[in-house]
């Protein structure tokens, strides 16, 4: 990353954190309840989730996958394999933006062949990230089935993709910006915020 890009990213971050136009749509306890509900739904709909593998998409999806794994362990005493799946190299917009740094792909021991993979991400928007994730998954193995869990579905799909588990359906306008904050990555703690998009590079990341 160039110095300029870094300064831009920092400026964008500061703008969003101090921007009064951002309003909280889910607070910490609402995020907590949504995750607990998704964990129950996964158990229910997969009849015990025996062969399920949770794969989070970095960075926030990865933290959410870890949390879902913990919830499921607390409810059912079942320790699901949890991993991460970086989709950067499979994105269709790579050439439209400056080169991105890579995230981590960590496939749990046992792989994904014949398993039920639950992809976990923070925000579902255009669906392009999930398309990339499906391609990335195809290069790693052949799951029995793939499902998708997201904390927020903000609409505006550009591809025929839908989520199986949704924390919150959030009607938004294209020009609006959805920001997910988690204690693992953000100092302010868990929250989902909605506001007007800031025309800078760094703020875009949160909407993907």
């Amino acid at each position, binding site marked *: *990353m160039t110095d300029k890009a870094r300064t831009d990213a920092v400026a964008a971050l500061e703008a969003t954190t101090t921007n009064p136009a951002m309003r909280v749509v889910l607070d910490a306890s609402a995020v907590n309840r949504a995750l607990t509900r998704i964990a129950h739904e996964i158990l229910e709909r997969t009849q015990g989730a025996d062969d399920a593998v949770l794969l989070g998409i970095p960075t926030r999806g990865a933290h959410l996958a870890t949390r879902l794994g913990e919830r499921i362990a607390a409810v059912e005493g079942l320790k699901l394999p949890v991993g991460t799946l970086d989709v950067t*190299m499979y994105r269709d917009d790579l*050439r439209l933006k*400056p*080169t991105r740094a*890579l*995230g981590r792909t960590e496939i749990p021991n046992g792989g994904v062949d014949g398993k039920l993979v639950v992809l976990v991400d923070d925000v579902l928007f255009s669906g392009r990230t999930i398309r990339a994730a499906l391609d990335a998954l195809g*290069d*790693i193995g052949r799951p029995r089935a793939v499902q998708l869990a997201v904390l927020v579905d903000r609409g505006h799909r550009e591809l025929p993709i839908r989520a199986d588990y949704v924390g919150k359906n959030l009607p938004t306008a294209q020009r609006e910006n959805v920001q997910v904050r988690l204690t693992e990555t953000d100092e302010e703690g868990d929250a989902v915020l909605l506001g007007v998009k800031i025309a800078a590079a760094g703020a875009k990341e949160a909407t993907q």
Partner: protein
Amino acid sequence: MKRHLLSTADLSADDATLILDTAGELARIADRPIKKLPTLRGRTVVNLFFEDSTRTRISFETAAKRLSADVINFSAKGSSVSKGESLKDTALTLEAMGADAVVIRHWASGGAHRLAHAGWIHSAVVNAGDGTHEHPTQALLDAYTLRSRLGSLEGRRVGIVGDVLHSRVARSNVHLLSTLGAEVTLVAPPTLMPFAVESWPCSYSYELDPVLPKLDAVMMLRVQRERMDQAFFPTEREYSRRYGLHANRMAALPEHAVVMHPGPMNRGLEISAEVADSARSTITEQVANGVSVRMAVLYLLLGGSEPAIGTENDEGGAR
């Protein structure tokens, strides 16, 4: 605005760390059943080799193919270069064919810089060794190997031993390792120590034995007979006795220290077979890491709308 990787002196500590971190992530696809990423689909990488090479060419070819780029291999032998075609005309041919990146090895120091800055082509240029000047991807893979063996490079002591005068590997490593915070010591007979070595960001010594016990890593350089136009040392036997790494000398190294060699090796001259095949030697590891590091360089130069590393066209890249 395409950018290039011509010299490790152009890389900031952030750039170098980004390349090494990216390489670390890319190394993991080597364990997958499908060792391929679609990232550079539809891009063309030309391997332009005016000098013989096994490791570097195959490594770049593998790296480009793992990223799904199309690869054209071009070596001076068996091409129009042997009929007297100039670098410029070769470059214009490549430009007409629409190469996105040119990986060049040239016998002339500055060959890669000339190709990048003469305005003949618009592709990104990666220096894969130019004469006795630089070989940046070799230094990057050495740094990657050191980092994975020793944890961090900060404050680590690295000895580079042998034919420093003719070594582009040594030059690239001195810049890169010092940028990353390591302390480099060059060891060579006075005849093989480069002119004005005092101005390099490293220390130097004419004796190997006093330096060895302090090192975290020792990098043995190949004695480059093909570049030696005069007698630089009396006999090979004497060179090997004073500057070669054999079992007795290896025992003087600290317990954790590693032995590196960029290859190809002259077994029995600068390094004994016993040392080269020992558990401390990282020589085959270096080759494997080379693919990951070159994938990282190609991805960071070609992956996005603008590259994340390297020098810009309008800058003077040479140092």
